């Protein structure tokens, strides 16, 4: 920015008002510029670049890029593993969202009263939230270990031998095992949000309904739930977004997408295609398709956030 000095003589006052406006515009742009540059270089440019690269055959390393038009997309559409992975991504996202929110809602409603140890409960159930998915994943791989793991040990001890499974090695349940770990990590977080929402409902409402003869279930259904809607929307949306695009770490650490692709999600398959398949063009085509699939959720999130950012505090 050029530094300008303003002699405060009456003759230049008019000019000064004009330059002040200009100076304000300059200041505004300068202050916002770094954020704009970062968003451009590392979010929007990569998006455009990914769309461009998806039209080439490229191993990601050499200078040799061959234009193939939409052939990568045709390949993706004919790749059954990718569509399985997309199916798993949806199963994961929806499963995690439903289970986390139902569990959290039930627990939050139970906890929404003066109880001894409630503070401790909140602090304790929130611990996994701050932990890395890597640590959580490694730990739970151990809990699920078929021979020495805690879970099968427990089932053995209580006489439920028939429930014993290879939690991560059986293709029919491996994905659900991974999903349950995600639920374990994040439920405490949703309890906190929903509890905050419950506590913001004025007690008088419930009391009035109770005096009018409404039972507890009716109060919950007709008063609590509607009052809770913004908070629930927020909570559900957050778990959806999180599950769609940050399931990579857990899957990678716990199963690596196996056994026989039964836990493969879109992101693990994209990374696999890039680094093992050395097919960066196709990987980018997959990324673009995934982007189009999740953009609706992103748009919804942006709308909810900007319209009611009061819930987020």
């Amino acid at each position, binding site marked *: 920015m050029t530094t300008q000095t303003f002699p405060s003589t009456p003759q230049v006052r008019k000019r000064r008002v004009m330059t002040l406006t200009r100076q304000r515009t300059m200041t505004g*742009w300068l202050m916002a510029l770094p954020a704009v540059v970062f968003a451009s270089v590392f979010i929007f440019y990569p998006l455009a670049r990914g769309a461009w690269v998806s039209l080439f055959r490229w191993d990601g390393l050499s200078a040799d890029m061959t234009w193939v038009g939409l052939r990568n997309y045709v390949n993706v559409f004919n790749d059954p593993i990718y569509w399985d992975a997309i199916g798993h991504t949806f199963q994961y996202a929806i499963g995690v969202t439903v289970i986390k929110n139902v569990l959290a809602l039930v627990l939050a409603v139970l906890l929404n009263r003066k109880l001894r140890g409630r503070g401790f409960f909140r602090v304790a159930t929130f611990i996994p939230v701050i932990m890395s998915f890597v640590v959580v994943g*490694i730990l739970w791989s151990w809990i699920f270990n078929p021979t020495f793991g805690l879970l099968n040990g427990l089932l053995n001890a209580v006489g439920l031998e028939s429930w014993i499974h290879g939690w991560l090695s059986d293709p029919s349940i491996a994905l659900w095992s991974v999903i349950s770990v995600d639920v374990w990590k994040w439920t405490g977080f949703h309890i906190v949000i929903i509890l905050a929402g419950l506590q913001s409902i004025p007690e008088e409402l419930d009391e009035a309904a109770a005096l009018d003869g409404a039972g507890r279930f009716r109060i919950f259904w007709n008063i609590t739930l509607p009052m809770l809607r913004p908070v629930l929307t927020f909570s559900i949306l957050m778990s959806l*977004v999180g599950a769609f695009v940050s399931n990579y770490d857990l899957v990678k650490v716990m199963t690596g997408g196996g056994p026989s692709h039964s836990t493969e999600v879109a992101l693990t398959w994209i990374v696999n295609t890039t680094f093992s398949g050395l097919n960066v063009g196709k990987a980018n085509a997959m990324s673009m398709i995934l982007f189009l699939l999740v953009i609706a959720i992103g748009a919804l999130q942006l709308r909810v956030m900007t319209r009611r950012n009061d819930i987020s505090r």
Partner: protein
Amino acid sequence: MSTYEALPLSVDRETASEIIHDRPPRRRKVGVLTPAYVASRAVTYVIMAVTILLTVYPLIWMVLGGFKSGSEFYANIWGLPSSLDFSNFVYSWNAGNLGQKFINSIVVTLGTMALVLPITSMAGYALAKIRFRGRRAIYVFILLGIMVPFGVIAIPVFTVIVDLGLLNTLVGLVLVYTANAIPLGVFLMYSFFESIPDELEEAAQVDGCSPFGAFFRIILPLARPGLATQVILTGTSVWNEYFMASLLIHQDSLQTLPLGLVIFTSRFGTNYPQLFAALTIVTLPMIILYLSAQKQFISGLAAGAVKG
């Protein structure tokens, strides 16, 4: 409803509603402890206890596992270790080169915050408080970044980092993390600054402060809670990040902790007590930090984890 009818008529309105909602009366009265009330509380306490156990026991198990010897680990899955033997921790620390990885994680986390905090507060302030041409467009542009999940553009970002010659550098990682934190950060700071009355900085400017001066002297100190939220939010997510790090760092000496842990697992994966010791070493500082500032952590993460 039945609860209400079963109450003695002498109970006043306030107490009645407290009982219906199982809120313990502030002034405890005889006759309030109906069997249904007691049972419902008992069930709640049991559910609470089970949930806490489910959450905390795996962690306790992890810490205890680190103290066990190899044979003890298999023979004694549940119990306490026979002695407080720190040799697994020492071994993991050295074999996994965890000291170096701690330093890398700290550098990356602090580096990211050193960029994110000033950048988002400047942008948030300018967009909320300075009336200038183009501010609406800039605001929308940055916010649109929230719609682009970072995982989805991971591979293109990887390519861009390669183009910039930043593959295998901590700087590359810091830049990517910063970009990831910016849209939400700007949004948080924007909402924060918008709630600060205009008169404050108008007064400052009348007193001769430039917009920059008003920002640094008056507004920024007021924005401390917003900054604290961001420190928690960015700090935790960067400290725990694995996906981008695994794409951008392919050199042992540059690994961050999550990346190092995964490599450690693939190399020493059969040495479970040592693996558990490593997990404990990595997790404990974060848990201690959390326990010493849990209110800030909980409200910070709840405020901003919108981006997952």
